[in-house]
């Protein structure tokens, strides 16, 4: 992956992708205990990457707006390539 200049967002991408891979694998291998351990690990990593990013740059999910104003509407939006 090309390195993102924002290291907090880079971490969100990396851990989010690991979670996507683990969850699809588990869908067809729900009894794989090693994969379950990996899932628990990447789930925690992804959660902490997301909250670290959100603290500085605002919500990634609509139910994570912590400010007094509606920061969900703030630019940039994902397709704009400005992150």
């Amino acid at each position, binding site marked *: *992956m*090309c390195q*993102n200049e924002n290291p907090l*967002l880079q971490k*969100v*991408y990396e851990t*989010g*992708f690991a979670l*996507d*891979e683990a*969850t*699809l*694998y588990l*869908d*067809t*291998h*729900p009894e794989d205990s090693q994969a379950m351990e990996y899932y628990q690990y990447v789930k925690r990593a992804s959660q902490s990457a997301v909250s670290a990013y959100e603290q500085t740059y605002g*919500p*990634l*999910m*609509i*139910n994570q707006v912590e400010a007094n104003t509606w920061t*969900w509407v703030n630019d940039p*939006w*994902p*397709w*704009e*390539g400005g*992150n």
Partner: protein
Amino acid sequence: MWRYEKRLQYPVKISQTNPKLAQFIISQYGGPDGESAAAMRYLSQRYAMPYSKGKAILTDIGTEELGHWEIIAAIVHQLTRNLTPQEIEESGFGPYYIDHTTGIWPQAAGGVPFNACEFQSKGDPITDLFENLAAEQKARTTYDNILRMVKDQDVCDPIRFLREREIVHFQRFGEALRDVQDHLDSRNFYAFNPAFDKVPTQNTRQSSRQNSK
């Protein structure tokens, strides 16, 4: 239901516009083997899937495809930002521009509009999963074709990511197919359609024998 996550699954940051390339890549937005067809195919097929692993994989790959659809739109959008009329004319982007300006609209590279006939939902889990295996390979070929035309690293990078996902999804659908077949009679997988036919159980077989006596 779905909730939006305000990021792409894979980042897209393109500095050099290229409307000609955008016209090729838009095929993965609304073309015959594109990401919109993929998402609709898998999410629509779920209702005829009798087995739990299959229900999960159709849901989660279908959801990921929605994210890929958004990545393609982001690529096309960034390739066509701030174009001048001269650039549009010289690049051959004119016919698209006349109807859509630089808005995003689902069509194939050749201009054919998106059509639900690009995918199948046949109501038979074996048939549907074979459709999906073929669909993932067709999308992989399309990405191979696109990659031969791309020289810009900013565009190659997310396209390569999407190409690799086709291969992973092919693998997962293969596993789902094996799971479906494990539920069926290995002497004849096609003896009945588990999404439609009432499956004869031991008890009903016995009772129908008694009835016929």
